[in-house]
């Protein structure tokens, strides 16, 4: 009896400190957030706030700015998924082929990842506003080289561009790990059977690196949805609020407009959407892994 008490105390000593911090930083605020989203809390004292049922949620769906942000975020996520993974996989194929200086190139491709989205956004802001404009002047062709950040559509693509530039190197690393896991024997066997480059890629490589797709798509998707840093540093939602992604909209609702309860309802919806979208993606990708 005494021994088991002692054993439990030891186990508790290993677990309770982490659990304490985790519960106080994540779990309690998360639960509070759900409760707040059903009240008219004003950001100050919670006592005295009234229960308003689904009132905030109704307002969220009437908030056209928020709906626009959400639409834009979906579009952003789709573009990111396609571009980041196509480019990331291509880079991975490049540096796992027998080219010289592949290690150096791998390091270069990964480099943007080490620099946070905030600073990257600032660097690109200069590139778009100064460098692009000058190149446009020199070439006399301003259909590509103009200040992207002045134009709503081009600003959106600027966000996608910089996001891709940052994340492609990260998923490249994941694909490299997967490609290196494919044994040479399998590839040689395919060669002997006369499978050409594309055939070999599609029939042999692709199925074998499917698990890497699951992870890369998941990471791209959740990062794209949560994008905030590059959004504030590169476009800051502009021009005229046309490039405001969801995370930024929630921030502004809370900290610029002081509509805390409304912002919290948006944040809960945001969570549910991320949950549904990423879980769906993982389930679909996993299924394909098993089939092959």
């Amino acid at each position, binding site marked *: 009896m005494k021994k088991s008490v002692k054993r439990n105390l*030891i186990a508790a000593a*290993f*677990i309770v400190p982490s*659990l304490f*911090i985790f519960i*106080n*930083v*994540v*779990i*309690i605020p*998360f639960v509070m*957030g759900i409760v*707040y989203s059903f009240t008219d809390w004003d*950001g100050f004292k919670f006592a005295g706030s009234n229960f308003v049922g689904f009132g905030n949620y109704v307002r969220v769906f009437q908030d056209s700015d928020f709906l626009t942000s959400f639409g834009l975020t979906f579009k952003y996520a789709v573009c990111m998924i396609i571009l980041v993974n196509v480019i990331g996989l291509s*880079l991975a194929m*490049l540096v796992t*082929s*027998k*080219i010289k200086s*592949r290690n*150096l190139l*791998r390091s*270069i*491709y*990964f*480099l943007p990842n*080490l*620099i*946070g*989205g*905030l*600073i990257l956004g*600032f*660097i*690109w*802001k*200069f*590139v778009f506003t*100064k*460098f692009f404009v*000058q*190149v446009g002047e020199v070439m006399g062709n301003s259909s590509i080289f103009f200040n992207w950040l002045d134009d709503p559509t081009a600003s959106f693509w600027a966000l996608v561009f910089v996001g891709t530039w940052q994340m492609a190197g*990260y998923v490249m*690393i*994941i694909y*490299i*790990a997967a490609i290196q896991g494919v044994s040479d024997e399998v*590839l040689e066997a395919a*060669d002997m059977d006369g499978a050409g480059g594309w055939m070999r890629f599609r029939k042999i490589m692709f199925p074998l690196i499917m698990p890497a797709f699951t992870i890369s798509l998941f990471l791209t998707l959740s990062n794209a*949805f*949560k994008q*905030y*840093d590059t959004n504030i540093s590169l476009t800051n939602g502009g021009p005229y609020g046309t490039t405001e992604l969801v995370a930024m909209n929630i*921030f502004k609702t809370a900290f610029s407009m002081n509509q*805390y309860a409304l912002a*919290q309802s948006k*944040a809960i919806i*945001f*969570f549910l959407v*991320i949950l549904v979208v990423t879980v769906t993606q993982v389930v679909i990708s996993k299924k394909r892994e098993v089939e092959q």
Partner: protein
Amino acid sequence: MKRRNKSTSILLEVIAWVSGLLMLLPMYIMFVNSFKGRAEIFTDTFGLPKSFSFEYYAAAMDKMNFLSAFKNSLLVSVISIGLIIIFSAMTSWMLVRMKNKLSNGILLLFVGTMLIPFQSVMIPLMQYLNKWDIPSLNFSMINTHYGLIFMYIGFGLSMSVFLYHGFIKGVPIALEEAAMIEGCNTWQTFWKVVFPMLTPITMTVGILNLLWIWNDYLLPSLTLTSPALRTIPLSTFFFFGEFTIQWNLAMAGLVVSIIPVIIFYLFAQKYIIKGVMAGAVK
């Protein structure tokens, strides 16, 4: 791969280098313009600067209070990561070895909440931790480095426990039992026998958390209000907002804030890339 002929491999080489240079182009532009005067930037952002003087660097470092920001970033990152490693390794090991309903429940709590985005907890979190203030002791979770570290540990635990737990499941128990028989207590067994065996995953956990915490702007922007406490991303943000008209100064500031990362990357790139690979496979 041996069927590839010479011209294709030259083509691949060229493509690879062009992509590499395109990746580096923004860095190059940032670097050269940090030396250029106003008129020079106005006419030419691409060429090498006429002279390399460090006047903008000195001014930028001074205006963004770089040394203090660097010290703050280093302090917050190192302590947060150290504690995340200690806490998550200990907890994960105990959870794996307990193997009962309670431990499964706790694991589920840590891992199942990984998808909660920061935006969904930030507003109540600030409100909640604000209540912990003890004015008489000068204790506050908001606008202090220890408060920020506390939050980093909380947010970092999910993924770290997930990674450690996955790794420890594959660590044989025999060595631990031998150590116990030799008279080690649980604490000693963990630190002397188990923890050294976890080194590969400890590297991964450390690196993934470093990439996040060092570059994080969100959390410090919400909790730190005193300029003296600012970390590098936060001071870069305020600095850049003030000096966008003076691009040379702004670029010098950006170069300075990136230098620590680049230096670290030169020395630790092998571990960083390995760490990211191992983290993704799990």
